[in-house]
C-alpha cells in the first residue's frame, strides 16, 4: 500500500516536471518542482499517519539452572575407598556457597535435584544417600531449561553428576539428543563427580533366555564394559553354582569400552540353576559389585530321550515302540536283538540288515544323554554287558531313570540277580530257574499306593480308576521276584498279592519294574473288548513322565516367590508343597531349608517351617547379600521319617540399571557440554567466572503514542503549497 502511494506521488511529481522542464528560467523550474515535491511530501504524511511512541523500560536478569544428581549411583564411592559421590558433591556445594551467592547476584539461580525426574532442591542440603531410581540427564536439562518463571532468558545450566545416565544418553549423545541440546541456546557446564574413580570393569548386561533345553547348546550374551584400563586380557567366566561351565578371554584395548562376549555351554541335566557371569576385580576399580551378574536358568527337556533295549521282537515291544514313536515328546533310540547266536538265518551277513549291537557306544559313551533307559525282556549275558552294568546303575543313582519290563529274559529270568542292576531295582531278584516266571493268568488290582500314584491314575475319580484297572484283560503271566526293597511301592498286584508294577528310587534316580511282558493287552486286547487303548497309552505316558521327573508329577515342590530378589528389599521367600512319594499331603511335616551360593557352596541353614493341613508352607529366608543361591528343602514327618526333598534356585541382585551400570561417565558429560558450547568444570573453578550467556533483556513497563499528522497546520500548509504552485503555473503560462 505504502509502495503504491509512493509510486503514485512520484509519478505525479514526474508528470509535473515534464510539463515545465523546457522552461528556460532555472529559478522558475526549481520553484515549481519544489512546490510539487513539498505537496507530495505533505500528502505522504497524511497517508502514513506518523507518530511518536514513548516507552518506560527496565532490564531483566537471566536464569542459571543448577542440576545436582540425586540418583542411587551417587551412593558409590567417588574414589576407591573414598567418600561417596553424593558426599563429594555436597562437599563441593558447601565449599562453593559464596560462589553461589555471587552467582545469584548476577542471575536468577534455580537449583534442582534430578534422577529420573527433576525437583527443586537446596544445594546445601543435598541427600547423602540419594535414592533416585534412574538417571536421565537430557530430561533433567530440558525440564530445568523450561521450568523458569517470568520468561527469563537462560544463561546456562550446570550439571553436577557422575554421568552414569541410563536413559537417552546411556549410549552417548546421539545426533537427535545433540540437536535437542542445541535448542537450549545456552551453554551447559558439567561438573563430573567421581571422575577420579574412572577405572571400572563391569558385566553390564547378560542376555539369555528364561529357559533352555537340556543337551542343547545355550549361548549367554554378555556385554562387558571396561573404562580406565590399558591393554589387557580379562577372563570372563560362567559358573553354574560354583562350577565353571564356560570361559572366554576378552582382549581389552584402551580405545574401546564395550565388549560383547558369547559364553556357550551344553546343560547336561534338567532343573533350575543359578548361574554367575564374572570378571576379576582389579585394583583401583570404582565398583567391585558390578564385576559379576547372576541369573537363573531353567533347563527343560525338549523331548524325553529314551533308550529302549529289547531282547527280542514281540507284540509287547511292538506296541510300546509304536506308542513312543508317535509321541512327539519322545526321542526314541531303540536296539532290538533280532537274531541270537543260536539263530540260523541261512544267509551271509551281507544279506541281512542287522547291525552290531553297539554296547560300548550306548552304555558307556552315550548313556548320560538318555533321560530314560528301558530294558524290555532283555538278558545282558549273551552280549557281554556285565562290564557296563555298574555304569548303568551309577547313571540311575546320579539322576537317571530306568525301567525293566518283564519277559522270559528279564528280571530273575534275565540273570540280573546279584548284578548292579538288581541293586537299583525296587525288587530283589531270585536266581534264574523255572520259578522265574509264573504263567498263571493274572487279574490286576490297584494297591493303596497305586490309588494315589500318578502312574496308575487312569481316571480322576478313585472309584472309576479302580473299575478301569479291574476291567482290563487278564495278563497271561508275570515274572516272579524276591522281597521288595526299602522305599519300593507296589502299585499293581495280582489277586494273589504278587507284585506286578513296582516303583522306587535309587539315590537321585527313579526306577520302575513292570513284571510282565503283556502290557500290550491293555491296548490291543482291551480294544477288542470294546475298552480301547486309552488305559495303555495313559499308563505309559504317565510312567515315563514320572520316571524322568516331569515337574508336574513331582510329589514335593519348592518355588521361590520370584526368580530375582532386590538386595535390601523384601527377603527371599519360598513356597513349599510337601507330598510324600505316595502323593498324599504331608500335613504337619517339618520343613528345613539350607542354602548355598556360587561363592559359598557349603550349605547353611536358612529357615524352617511346618506344613499346614494341605501340606503347604511358606518359608521366609533372612535377608541375603547379592549372589546366586540354591535352596534345598527337606521335609520330615513329626515322627522323624523323611518325606522328601526339593530344590530351587534364585538370585539376589539389583534389578535396576541404576546400580548395575553405575560407573562414572564423564565422557557423556563432556559430550553434553560440547553440544551446547559449554565446558567441563573443574571442582575448583569459581562458578561466577564461567562464560555464562548473559543476554540483556529489556522489559517494557509503560508505552504512550503521539500522532504527528493529526494537526490542522499540516492541512493548511498543504493547501497553501498546492495553491502557490497553481498560481505560479498559471502566471508563467503552464496549464
Amino acid at each position, binding site marked *: 500500500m505504502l509502495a503504491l502511494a509512493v509510486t503514485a506521488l512520484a509519478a505525479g511529481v514526474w508528470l509535473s516536471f515534464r510539463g515545465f522542464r523546457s522552461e528556460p528560467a532555472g529559478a522558475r523550474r526549481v520553484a515549481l518542482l519544489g512546490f510539487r515535491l513539498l505537496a507530495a511530501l505533505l500528502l505522504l504524511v497524511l497517508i502514513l499517519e506518523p507518530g511518536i511512541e514513548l516507552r518506560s523500560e527496565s532490564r531483566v536478569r537471566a536464569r542459571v539452572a543448577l542440576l545436582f544428581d540425586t540418583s542411587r549411583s551417587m551412593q558409590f564411592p567417588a574414589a576407591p575407598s573414598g567418600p561417596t559421590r553424593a558426599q563429594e558433591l555436597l562437599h563441593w556445594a558447601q565449599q562453593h556457597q559464596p560462589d553461589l551467592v555471587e552467582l545469584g547476584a548476577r542471575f536468577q539461580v534455580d537449583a534442582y535435584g534430578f534422577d529420573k525426574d527433576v525437583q527443586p532442591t537446596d544445594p546445601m542440603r543435598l541427600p547423602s544417600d540419594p535414592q533416585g531410581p534412574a538417571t536421565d540427564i537430557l530430561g533433567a536439562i530440558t525440564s530445568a531449561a523450561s521450568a523458569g518463571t517470568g520468561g527469563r532468558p537462560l544463561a546456562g545450566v550446570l550439571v553436577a553428576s557422575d554421568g552414569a545416565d541410563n536413559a537417552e544418553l546411556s549410549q552417548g549423545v546421539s545426533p537427535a539428543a545433540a540437536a535437542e541440546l542445541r535448542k537450549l541456546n545456552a551453554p551447559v557446564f558439567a561438573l563430573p563427580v567421581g571422575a577420579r574413580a574412572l577405572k571400572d570393569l563391569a558385566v553390564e548386561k547378560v542376555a539369555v533366555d528364561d529357559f533352555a533345553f537340556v543337551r542343547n547348546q545355550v549361548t549367554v550374551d554378555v556385554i562387558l564394559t571396561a573404562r580406565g584400563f590399558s591393554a589387557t586380557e580379562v577372563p570372563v567366566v560362567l559358573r553354574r553354582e560354583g562350577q565353571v561351565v564356560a570361559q572366554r578371554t576378552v582382549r581389552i584395548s584402551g580405545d574401546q569400552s564395550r565388549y560383547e562376549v558369547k559364553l556357550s555351554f551344553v546343560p547336561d541335566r534338567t532343573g533350575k540353576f543359578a548361574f554367575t557371569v564374572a570378571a576379576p576385580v582389579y585394583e583401583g576399580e570404582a565398583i567391585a559389585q558390578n564385576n559379576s551378574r547372576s541369573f537363573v536358568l531353567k533347563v527343560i527337556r525338549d523331548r524325553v530321550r529314551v533308550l529302549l533295549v529289547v531282547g527280542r521282537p514281540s507284540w509287547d515291544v511292538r506296541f510300546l515302540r*509304536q506308542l513312543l514313536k508317535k509321541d512327539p515328546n519322545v526321542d526314541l533310540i531303540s536296539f532290538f536283538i*533280532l537274531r541270537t547266536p543260536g*539263530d540260523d538265518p541261512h544267509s551271509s551277513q551281507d544279506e541281512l540288515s542287522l547291525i552290531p549291537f553297539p554296547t560300548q557306544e550306548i552304555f558307556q559313551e552315550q548313556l548320560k544323554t538318555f533321560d530314560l533307559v528301558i530294558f524290555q525282556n532283555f538278558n545282558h549275558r549273551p552280549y557281554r554287558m556285565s562290564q557296563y552294568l555298574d555304569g548303568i546303575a551309577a547313571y540311575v543313582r546320579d539322576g537317571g531313570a530306568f525301567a525293566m519290563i518283564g519277559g522270559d529274559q528279564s528280571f530273575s529270568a534275565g540273570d540280573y540277580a546279584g548284578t548292579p542292576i538288581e541293586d537299583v531295582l525296587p525288587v530283589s531278584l531270585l536266581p534264574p530257574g523255572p520259578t522265574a516266571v509264573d504263567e498263571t493268568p493274572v487279574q490286576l488290582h490297584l494297591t493303596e499306593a497305586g490309588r494315589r500314584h500318578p502312574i496308575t491314575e487312569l481316571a480322576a475319580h478313585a472309584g472309576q480308576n479302580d473299575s478301569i484297572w479291574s476291567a482290563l484283560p487278564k495278563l497271561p503271566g508275570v515274572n516272579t521276584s524276591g522281597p521288595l526293597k526299602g522305599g519300593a511301592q507296589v502299585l499293581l498286584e495280582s489277586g494273589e498279592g504278587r507284585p506286578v508294577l513296582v516303583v522306587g528310587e535309587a539315590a537321585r534316580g527313579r526306577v520302575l519294574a513292570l513284571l510282565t511282558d503283556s502290557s500290550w493287552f491293555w491296548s490291543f486286547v482291551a480294544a477288542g473288548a470294546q475298552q480301547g487303548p486309552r488305559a495303555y497309552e495313559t499308563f505309559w505316558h504317565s510312567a515315563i513322565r514320572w520316571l524322568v521327573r516331569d515337574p508336574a508329577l513331582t510329589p514335593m515342590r519348592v518355588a521361590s516367590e520370584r526368580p530375582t530378589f532386590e538386595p535390601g528389599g523384601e527377603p527371599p521367600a519360598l513356597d513349599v508343597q510337601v507330598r510324600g512319594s505316595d502323593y498324599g499331603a504331608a500335613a504337619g511335616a517339618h520343613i528345613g531349608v539350607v542354602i548355598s551360593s556360587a561363592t559359598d557352596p557349603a550349605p547353611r541353614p536358612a529357615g524352617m517351617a511346618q506344613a499346614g493341613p494341605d501340606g503347604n508352607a511358606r518359608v521366609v529366608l533372612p535377608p541375603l547379600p547379592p549372589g546366586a543361591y540354591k535352596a534345598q528343602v527337606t521335609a520330615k514327618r513329626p515322627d522323624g521319617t523323611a518325606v522328601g526333598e526339593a530344590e530351587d534356585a534364585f538370585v539376589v541382585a539389583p534389578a535396576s540399571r541404576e546400580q548395575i551400570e553405575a560407573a562414572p561417565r564423564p565422557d557423556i558429560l563432556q559430550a553434553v557440554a560440547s553440544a551446547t558450547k559449554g565446558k567441563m568444570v573443574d571442582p575448583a573453578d569459581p562458578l561466577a567466572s564461567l562464560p555464562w550467556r548473559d543476554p540483556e533483556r529489556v522489559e517494557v513497563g509503560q508505552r504512550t503514542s503521539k500522532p504527528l499528522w493529526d494537526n490542522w497546520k499540516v492541512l493548511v500548509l498543504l493547501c497553501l503549497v498546492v495553491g502557490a504552485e497553481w498560481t505560479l503555473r498559471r502566471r508563467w503560462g503552464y496549464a
Partner: protein
Amino acid sequence: MVSRRTLLALPLLLAARRAFAFGEQARFTFAQARHGGRWDPRPDGLSRLSWEISKRTSIETSPAVKALGLADPDLFRYPFVVLSSDQAMPAPADNEVAELRRYLSYGGFLLVDDASATRGGPFEQSARQLVSRIVPGGRLSRVPRDHVLYKSFYLLDGPAGRVAATPDLEGLELGGRLAVLYSGNDMIGALARDSLGSWEFEVTPGGELQREKSIRLGVNIAMYSLCLDYKEDQVHIPFIMKRRRI
C-alpha cells in the same frame, strides 16, 4: 480228536527251542481268517513259516495257527491275521468288516495271500472289494522297493512266492504303518510241505532260490509287523546302504 493241523504242527512244537514265557499269547502266533470261502488253501504253510521265523530270528513263535472268524473277539489276541484263498471269497458281513476295521485301526496287521496267484483272479477281486469296504475309499497300492518291509531282517529286492504272478507287493497304510499287505504270488504256498515233509508245490520260475526268497519275505513281513520301521532308525542306515551297494 486230533486234527490234521495239530498233527502237522506237533514236530514243530517239539522243536521249539525255548521255554514258554507267559503262555502262548506272548508268542508270535498267526491267526487265520475263517471266511465264507476256501479259507485254508495251504494248511501247513503258516506253521512252516512260524518254524522258519523261530529258527532264523530271535522271535519266539507258536507253530499253532489260530483259525478265527473275522468277528471273533479272540481275534484281538492275535495281532497278525492272514486272509487267504485260491477262490473267490464271499463278501463278509458288515459286522465282520466293522470288526476288521477296528482290528486294523488299533494296531492289527492283515496279510492277504492269493493262493491262486492269478492276476485279476476271483480272490484278488474279492480281496480288493473287502479292502475298499474296510477303509471306504481306500485301495491297495504298490509297496515301493525301498520300503522298510524289504529290509526288516533280510535285504530283499522284491516279492517272491510260489509263482511270479505280480512284480510287487501292494499295501494299505493306516496311521503311518502298513496295516494291510497283499501278496499275489502265493507266498505261503511256497512254504507248504506235505505230510511226509516234502515241499508241496514246485516253485516257478526260480526254483529253490525263489522258495528261499519266499521264506525270507515271510520272515521280513513278520519282523515288520513286530518292529515296524525299526530298520529306518538312523543308526541302521549307513550299514544298510553299505550292504545294498555290495
